[in-house]
């Protein structure tokens, strides 16, 4: 459905994209994850036909963005970053305008605009000027605009930025509903979002894809491996030392004394070292009370931070 090979783009002396290659299959929902200015927007602008790559190819639905940009654009719905819209136009009129420029005519155009408005729950604000809408509504109008011609591919650049938690959930659900019929690529730097909707994640940093896989695959590749949380009734000073001495413990992330006399803490451990069991035995030997012991795979945040560490600063700014 989407295939890029060696996509490269430079702005002046900064390299925004550096030989980026990836594939996205039909019906997949793929999240572009990366710090700000990592190259996400540049990649999406190229896929949407708003920008030409310096080198490399991008083929969408069998059409090359350089050779047949109009054919690509007919099949793609694009939500640019920050939802730019015509403030003086009315919601309904704007959707009809978008549908018309996508080649729909007459009754089909009106129907498409109406349907997109319905899907994005815009009926109430149909006749309002876009400039008077709240951030959440604006984002939905921009999304409706991207959907109006029922494209095979949706490219959404940070669709949830600037929304309140309630609105974020709404937009996320909307993407969830769409994914059965369409291929969706969306960018974000909110990790929970990726976990919530994506089947696959591409982590981009400094213009390169640094990791790729499903959220759970990426988690299992985390350097930290396991995260162990515990609650012990034990003297604080001694405990810290003894926990750190256990085999397979990489570091004690935090340890604090609760008012009820318990110590609550988390540590990072090798997955294979059986650290939970060691803690249990240690508590039994020392006669400590143990009220909680839980191990969980490292979170996506850690994968992300590990992969994109020593960077982010001074990287290419993608727009303009």
């Amino acid at each position, binding site marked *: 459905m989407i295939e890029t090979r060696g996509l490269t783009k430079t702005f002046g002396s900064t390299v925004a994209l550096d030989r980026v290659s990836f594939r996205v299959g039909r019906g997949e929902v793929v999240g572009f994850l990366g710090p700000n200015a990592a190259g996400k927007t540049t990649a999406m602008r190229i896929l949407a036909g708003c920008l*030409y790559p310096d080198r490399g190819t991008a083929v969408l639905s069998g059409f090359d963005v350089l050779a047949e940009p109009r054919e690509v654009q007919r099949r793609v719905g694009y939500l640019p970053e*920050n939802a730019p819209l015509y403030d003086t136009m009315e919601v309904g009129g704007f959707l009809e305008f978008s549908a018309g420029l996508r080649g729909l005519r007459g009754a089909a155009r009106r129907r498409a605009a109406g349907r997109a408005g319905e899907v994005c729950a815009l009926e109430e604000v149909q006749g309002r000027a876009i400039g008077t809408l709240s951030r959440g509504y604006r984002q939905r109008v921009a999304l409706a605009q991207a959907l109006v011609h029922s494209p095979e591919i949706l490219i959404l650049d940070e669709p949830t930025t600037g929304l309140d938690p309630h609105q974020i959930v709404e937009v996320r659900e909307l993407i969830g509903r769409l994914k059965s019929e369409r291929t969706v690529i969306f960018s974000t730097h909110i990790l929970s979002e990726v976990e919530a909707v994506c089947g696959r994640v591409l982590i981009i940093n400094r213009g390169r894809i640094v990791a790729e896989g499903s959220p759970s695959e990426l988690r299992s590749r985390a350097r930290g491996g396991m995260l162990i949380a515990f609650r012990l009734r034990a003297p604080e000073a001694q405990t810290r030392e003894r926990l750190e001495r256990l085999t397979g413990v990489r570091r004690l992330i935090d340890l604090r004394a609760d008012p009820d006399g318990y110590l609550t803490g988390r540590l990072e451990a090798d997955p294979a070292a059986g650290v939970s069991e060691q803690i249990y035995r240690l508590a039994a030997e020392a006669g400590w009370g143990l009220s909680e012991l839980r191990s969980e795979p490292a979170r996506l945040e850690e994968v992300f931070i590990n992969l994109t560490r020593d960077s982010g600063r001074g990287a290419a700014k993608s727009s303009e």
Partner: protein
Amino acid sequence: MRKIALLIAKEFNGYFNSTIAYVFMVLFLAATSWLFFATFFLAGRADLQPLFAVLPWLFLFFIPAASMRLWAEERKSGTLELLLSYPVPAWQLAAGKFAASLLFLFLTLALTVPIVVTVAFLGNPDPGRVAAGYLGALLLGSACLAVGLFWSSVTVNQIVAFILTVVTIFILLVVDQFLFLFNLGPRAAALVGSVSFAARQEGFNRGVVDSRDLVFFATMTVLFLAFNVISLQFRKWK
């Protein structure tokens, strides 16, 4: 064509959705009326030529004001990104904006018709000359709008677009009057001088519709619209 029509409608409504259009029209009408009637009653001749003679100098400031917004605003607000993502070729985007602004200019010029009616009531102006005068004004206006549209596509800043357009139109208006400054041969001088917008428009004011002038203004319009399309395409490459 359907897409161009949509773009024209969007752009034309854009003028009237803000107060710009009304301010523009009122000021333009006030300026033309004042400049015309200030001398009209003194001269005591039912002649519209003075009206058309001041138009280039009014256009010098009014046209850049009408065109500076067209692309610069889209770039600033980010909506250009939206437009460029639609399956519409760049030349259609430029044509839509140009046609809308020309329509707006047409409407503004139409508001000066009461002046013509007044003159016709008082005297007996030559209808052919009046028609030629309006045709010349529209042609001059369309070339100036194309210049303004081009500069608007080059910058995000409307003020910069305005100034660059004023400077360009000014040079094109008076280029024939400053030839003595340069040591050009007679043939080169004639060639450079033939680019003068003011000299070309003057023929229309005298009631002469010369096909060469028609072609000249049409060529200048198309030329600057082509620059506009190139600057849009260039954006995708840079």
